Structures are given as C-alpha cells and as structure tokens.
C-alpha cells in the first residue's frame, strides 16, 4: 500500500518536472523563467525527500535541508539584478 502511494507520488513529481521544464522553454520573459527556477527548486526538494523515503536512507533529508536553506539566494539575486541594483 505504502509502496504504491510512494510510486504514485514519484510519478506525479515527474509530471511536475515536465510542466516546469515546459514553462522554462516556452516562457517569453525572464520573469517566467525565474518562476520556473523557483518552481523546479521546490520540486527538487520534494523529490529528494521522496527518494529518502523510498530508499529508507534518512541522511538524504540533510541534502534537502541544505537546498532549502540556499535556494532563495539565486531567485533573490535575479530579482535584484532585474531591478538594476545588484
């Protein structure tokens, strides 16, 4: 039961990665691509936690923790650059 639910969640996350890549390729402005970067970062954090659950190795959660602490930095830098302030 739990195995089925985890596999279903991984499939849903893969569909979400496809949608984020579609917005990254299609997006006409830079702001769309920044939003795609933020979205794909959140999806990657969820995917790392899901891999830790599937493989039962909970040291992988630390990677998601470091990623969540540092992921705001690039979006913040792009926002400051678009405002001509960096």
């Amino acid at each position, binding site marked *: 039961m739990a195995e089925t639910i985890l*596999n279903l969640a*991984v499939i849903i996350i*893969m569909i979400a*990665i*496809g949608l984020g*890549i579609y917005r*990254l*390729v299609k997006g006409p402005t*830079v702001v769309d*691509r*920044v939003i*795609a*970067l933020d979205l*794909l*970062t959140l999806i*990657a954090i969820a*995917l*790392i936690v899901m*891999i830790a659950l*599937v*493989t039962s*190795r909970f*040291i*992988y959660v*630390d*990677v998601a923790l*470091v*990623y969540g602490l*540092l*992921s705001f*930095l*690039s979006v913040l*830098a*792009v926002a*400051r*650059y*678009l405002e*001509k302030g*960096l």
Partner: protein
Amino acid sequence: MMTLLTLVLCIGILISALLATYLERRVAAVISAGLVGLFASVTYVILSAPDVAMTEAAIGSGITTVIFLFALSKTKEQPDE
C-alpha cells in the same frame, strides 16, 4: 521507477544545457545554467552520493548564479535588450 526518474532528470539536464547555450537574453542563460546544477544535484542523490549533492547544491546552484549575475552587472558595454 528509479531508472525512469533518472531518465527524466537527465533529459532535464540536457534541455537546460541547450537553453543555456541558445537563449538570447543573458540573464535567462544564467538561470538555465543554474538549473543544470539543480538537476545534477538530484541525480547525485539518486546515485547515493549525498555529500557531493550537498556541495553541488551549495556551490553549483547557489553561489555560481550570484557570481554570474554580479559579473553581468559589472559589464555594461553590450547591454541586453
């Protein structure tokens, strides 16, 4: 399942690298180059190397984007439209 997931992530790395090469706006190219590091980090976790993934997440995707944007804001000779 993990094989399919690795395939999807490698296709993501390929598309991001091609976008970083072919995009006209340089800020969008920097964003795509950061996404290569993001997908590579998740791939390192799948290949059971969490320390490499942690370093890649900190340096490859976090600091490199900030340094590229800082260098772009210093160069003013060819302004992007």
